[in-house]
């Protein structure tokens, strides 16, 4: 197959909104953290927790094991807090415009989709819909800052319980400086009637985005949670080091879906977001966590949404499509840690590489010695477009119990000229043909997304390959 040239494409979310911002000067030390914590009127326990994390972080080395190459960030050159100064939403036309450009019409969203949306711009949460419906059911859905003030017991009980503050370099940094994020609590036996959604956006230059998401599903409850991400086009690399913690208590289910479209850098590989994220969920008995992710953005994606299957009969799922082009690098996958008996996990990973990009699946399936009858099925498929990209699969399997059953399947394929010709013959041009084939390749994962999101994701896969066929 001849090489398909990857042209540059328009990153439709590359705009910058000029909004007055309350931004910290660059640098990180204990004072920065104290100021941050005071500014957010946080309780002392949290300030100490942050300082603890910071001290741990200072002792840590930036990890190097990923199949990615990048210039190290200078952590003292980043501003650790930037808040858009907000007047009420209606009174701030520039912010309103940003939200419209991002595809939000709040009234419309309410009517049609039945999705509650939060928007995190730079560091703080700026808009929220649907509060009333949720409050009636006792569901809490707010910014983590608000939760810290209003529901300190819940936050204190679960924050850092799944991703410890000394977990890894980026998670510790996040624990020290996280500025905002989402908090969600579903009470016992409540099935959340609408999709909860947070929309993250990096607006200011030279800042890091460190949001913290904590989702707690109480016994027997259910929630479907969506997050989307975009950022303006910038020459320098922006750092996004988020932490997401999911707590699925007995018999509950959390479905967590991500469409990640941070700025991927230009066609020469300049700029773009470093997306170094720690996502992990804890399952109690008979609980279930499903991670679904569509990763198309960021110059580097480095993340492994994981499940700790602690309780008996708990279930973990991971469904992923990662698309890389130009010089993008993705090292993503999952960890399924089987601790309880009869725990089950499913991994379905679809990697699509184009241009000079590098796309790696890295996954760990671990079965503890006491976990009887653990089951795992993993499938990793890679699709290559052109001759200069790379697809890698790094499956790690650690089994300490002989009753476990682990299956792993992997395939690598290329888009064939005959497939394109077939589509062409039906009047479909080559670009559209490629996106059709890619969508087909990703179908099993796209089908796991809530309907509205699936449509967005399909469009995104098309947008991302605009001009990818020469």
């Amino acid at each position, binding site marked *: 197959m001849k090489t398909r040239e990857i042209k540059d494409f328009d990153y439709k979310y590359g705009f910058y909104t000029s909004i007055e911002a309350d931004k910290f000067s660059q640098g990180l030390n204990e004072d920065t953290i104290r100021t941050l914590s005071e500014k957010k009127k946080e309780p002392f326990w949290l300030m100490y927790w942050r300082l603890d994390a910071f001290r741990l972080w200072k002792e840590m080395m930036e990890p190097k094991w990923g199949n990615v190459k990048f210039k190290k960030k200078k952590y003292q050159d980043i501003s650790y807090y930037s808040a858009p100064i907000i007047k009420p939403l209606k009174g701030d036309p520039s912010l309103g415009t940003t939200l419209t450009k991002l595809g939000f019409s709040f009234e419309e969203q309410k009517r049609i989709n039945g999705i509650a949306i939060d928007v995190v711009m730079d560091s703080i949460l700026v808009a929220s819909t649907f509060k009333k419906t949720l409050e009636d059911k006792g569901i809490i859905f707010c910014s983590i800052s608000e939760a810290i003030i209003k529901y300190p017991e819940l936050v204190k009980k679960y924050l850092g319980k799944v991703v410890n503050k000394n977990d890894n370099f980026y998670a510790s940094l996040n624990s020290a400086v996280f500025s905002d994020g989402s908090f969600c609590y579903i009470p016992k036996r409540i099935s959340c009637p609408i999709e909860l959604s947070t929309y993250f956006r990096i607006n200011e230059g030279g800042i890091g985005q460190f949001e913290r998401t904590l989702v707690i599903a109480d016994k027997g409850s259910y929630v479907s949670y969506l997050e989307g991400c975009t950022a303006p086009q910038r020459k320098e690399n922006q750092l996004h080091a988020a932490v997401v913690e999911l707590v699925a208590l007995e018999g509950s289910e959390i479905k967590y879906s991500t469409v990640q479209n941070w700025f991927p850098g230009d066609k020469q590989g300049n700029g773009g977001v470093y997306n170094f994220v720690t996502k992990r969920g804890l399952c109690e008995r008979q609980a279930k966590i499903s991670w679904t992710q569509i990763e198309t953005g960021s110059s580097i994606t480095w993340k492994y949404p994981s499940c700790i299957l602690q309780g008996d009969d708990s279930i973990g799922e991971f469904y992923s499509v990662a698309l890389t082009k130009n010089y993008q690098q993705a090292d993503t996958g999952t960890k399924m840690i089987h601790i309880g008996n009869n725990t089950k996990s499913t991994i379905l990973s679809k990697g699509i590489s184009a241009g000079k990009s590098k796309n790696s699946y890295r996954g760990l399936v671990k079965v503890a010695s006491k976990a009887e009858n653990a089951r795992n099925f993993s499938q990793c498929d890679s699709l290559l477009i052109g001759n200069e990209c790379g697809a890698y699969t790094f499956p790690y399997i650690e089994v300490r119990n002989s009753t476990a059953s682990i299956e792993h399947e992997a395939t690598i394929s290329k888009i*064939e*000229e*005959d*497939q394109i*010709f*077939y*589509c*062409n*013959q*039906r*009047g*479909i*041009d*080559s670009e*559209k043909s490629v996106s*059709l*084939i890619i*969508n*087909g*390749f*990703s*179908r*099993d994962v796209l089908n796991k997304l809530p309907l509205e999101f699936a449509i967005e994701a399909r469009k995104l896969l098309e947008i991302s390959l605009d001009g990818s066929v020469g």
Partner: protein
Amino acid sequence: MGLLANNIYMLKIENLHVSIEEKPLLKGINLHINAGEVHAIMGPNGSGKSTLSSVIAGKKEYKVTTGIIRFEGEKIIHLSPEERAQRGIFLSFQDPIEIPGVSVTNFIRTSVNSLRKARGLEDMPIHDMLKTIRKKLEIFGMDKNFLSRSLNEGFSGGEKKRNEIFQMAMLNPKLSILDETDSGLDIDALRTVSQGINAFKSKKNAILIITHYYRILKYIVPDFVHVLYRGKMVKSGGKKLALDIEKNGYSWIKPV
């Protein structure tokens, strides 16, 4: 058949020479097809039948060294495969390729709308699309489940061929090239598919049947039969020629 002076052929091929990697495959093909006509090209394996259909459809591996192909008067050799499709050329593939994860419905919808877009039309409303699809399904005696299956993936030979003809009926092309459509079809399927093709046939469109065997021509009666042998048209005639080949094979036809 008398032609008016100002007649423009639907397909006119003149002195077509085609090679692949310096190896000549077609050596001076001439073929004229009018709207409303059914032509059959017969020939033994390796005679160049499928090459000819691929070249008309615009497959890139083949190199046209000399000759002209006109579609409705317009030279088309420089056009891309999709531009030819958009002008109304359809190829029913001999061995249709699989496209995993793309459902038959989704593929047809994309195809129909791409053709409409090329003609400056809006997308066909979903409701109309589904209605048309259902109607055509019935004609070809196909099951509804078929629509949600991945395109050609795990299809039997017969299902693949039916799917091709089903797409033809959906896309309503002017010129349909049916490359070995009969192979892989059992006798009942051949009858249903042929009925569908006959129902589709009109004064406005033309059909070019590429086949090794006579049997499909029992159901779809050609106006003209051409014999292709070693890259050359060695004989042309009416439908009787097909019968003669059925009886006596190809060996009696001597290259010109």
